[in-house]
């Protein structure tokens, strides 16, 4: 899913270039990869707060046509039923302000992308959904959504705006001081709009395993917001390198690596994303395979892997048991928190139980490793009781 040959510049390109020269092409965007160093940036995010520019991703608003005449829950049910043609999540069941993680699946039950869908809390936005898809898949996803819902709803792309992620244990304190005190009261996986820095859409969410926020802000207001956040002593800029090691420690899938069109949500251990109403309705793409695997189990399963020595096992390393290949590593690297190598991959289900010892074939040499539960580092999400 490669984009244009010349990578696009982020709206905040100049702000990042004043702080690092280490940039690289990711999904068609020229992205800051590293500031003071991958490991210090990673640890800073786990201990304080990191600011990530994820404007390469695909935020969008999906809305019933003007004059739809529906209100509240009725409007939501209508727009949700349209997007449910593409995803197995119970979108209709979202409460006002709730965010859900889901996937676009194909008719074979494979995953075309993973994404977030949010139901706005504001009554005036009834009949809207806020949807954020992956950078490398956004053009495909938007085309699929438009094709499946033509004439029934409108998709408005918002990827000309900036999407900033503020992540870490200090994120709530920083956000309350700089944006709005009410941000500290949001629960994880909720969305709300604020009249600050123009009009921003904030989700309490992220992809690092930490508490934090993802903030959609217009490009003309983004510099001021980013500079104010970065001026806070608890905040440092974080590159794409640490974003990857943080999400790996958190056991989260990276599309195109840990998920692809051949992988089912069940194999990926994401059965929890398919709520009961949809399992009973059996009305989403690939339902046949996905529900069969849900009932009977899949042949292979995504697992955590701890090498038993110091050698990292990266994507593509083959996994063996008794001389036979039983799986493959899909993401791997170094965990700063555990101070050792960690990997995720797929193995035959018979070998997927934590504690199983397997061999990783690294540069032609088998090396012992143990299957472990995910995440490698506990999530720190903040759930507020109502």
């Amino acid at each position: 899913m490669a984009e244009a040959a010349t990578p696009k510049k982020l709206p905040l390109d100049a702000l990042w270039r004043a702080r690092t020269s280490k940039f690289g092409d990711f999904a068609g965007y020229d992205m800051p990869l590293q500031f003071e160093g991958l490991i210090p940036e990673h640890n800073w995010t786990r201990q304080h707060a990191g600011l990530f520019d994820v404007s390469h991703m695909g935020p969008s608003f999906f809305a019933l046509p003007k004059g739809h005449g529906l209100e509240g829950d009725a409007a939501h049910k209508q727009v949700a039923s349209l997007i449910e043609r593409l995803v197995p999540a119970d979108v209709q069941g979202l409460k006002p302000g709730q965010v859900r993680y889901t996937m676009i699946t194909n008719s074979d039950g494979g995953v075309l992308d993973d994404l977030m869908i949010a139901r706005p809390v504001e009554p005036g936005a009834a009949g809207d959904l806020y949807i954020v898809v992956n950078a490398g898949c956004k053009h495909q996803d938007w085309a699929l959504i438009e094709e499946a819902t033509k004439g029934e709803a409108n998709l408005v792309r918002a990827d000309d705006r900036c999407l900033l992620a503020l992540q870490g244990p200090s994120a709530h304190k920083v956000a309350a001081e700089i944006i709005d005190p009410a941000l500290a009261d949001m629960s994880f996986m909720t969305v709300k709009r604020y009249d600050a820095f123009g009009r921003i859409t904030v989700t309490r969410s992220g992809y690092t395993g930490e508490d934090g926020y993802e903030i959609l802000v217009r490009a003309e207001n983004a510099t001021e917001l980013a500079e104010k956040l970065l001026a806070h002593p608890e905040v440092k800029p974080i590159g794409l390198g640490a974003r990857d090691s943080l999400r790996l420690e958190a056991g989260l899938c990276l599309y195109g690596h840990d998920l692809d069109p051949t992988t089912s949500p069940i194999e990926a251990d994401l059965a929890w994303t398919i709520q009961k109403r949809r399992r009973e309705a059996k009305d989403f793409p690939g339902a046949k395979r996905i529900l069969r695997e849900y009932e009977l189990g899949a042949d292979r399963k995504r697992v955590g892997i701890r090498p038993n020595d110091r050698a990292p096992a990266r994507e593509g390393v083959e996994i063996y048991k008794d001389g036979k290949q039983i799986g493959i590593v899909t993401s791997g690297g170094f965990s700063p928190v555990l101070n050792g190598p960690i990997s995720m991959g797929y193995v035959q289900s018979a070998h997927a139980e934590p504690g199983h010892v397997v061999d990783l074939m690294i540069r032609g040499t088998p090396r012992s490793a143990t299957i472990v539960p995910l995440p490698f580092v506990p999530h720190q999400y903040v759930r507020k009781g109502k």
Partner: protein
Amino acid sequence: MTTRYTKDHEWVRMEGDIAVIGISKYAAEQLGDVVYAELPAAGASFAQGADMAVVESAKTASDVYAPISGEIVEANAAITGENWEIINAEPEAGGWFVKLKPSNKGELDGLMDEAAYADYVKGL
């Protein structure tokens, strides 16, 4: 004795009849903190340009190539002892990788000297 460099950022310095080999300061900086390295054992032989060692940072794994042909006579015990910090701290001194007995010293003439390497790096 002058230090010579390859385009792949290895350095080699003759100490008597033995070549000391490592990765350049530039390479170490680009790589970031080393989290793993694998060196060949004494007795192993390599042709110029062959995969000789592996060095990994949190970011990536990099192959280290033999800058000249020869036989390994010693691997740096600090590195085989997993004290990888020394590669970042002193890449062109205490962080050397291996000592090698060259089989063709003439290969050294094809490598860059310090000034040529500095120019090369500036152009990257």
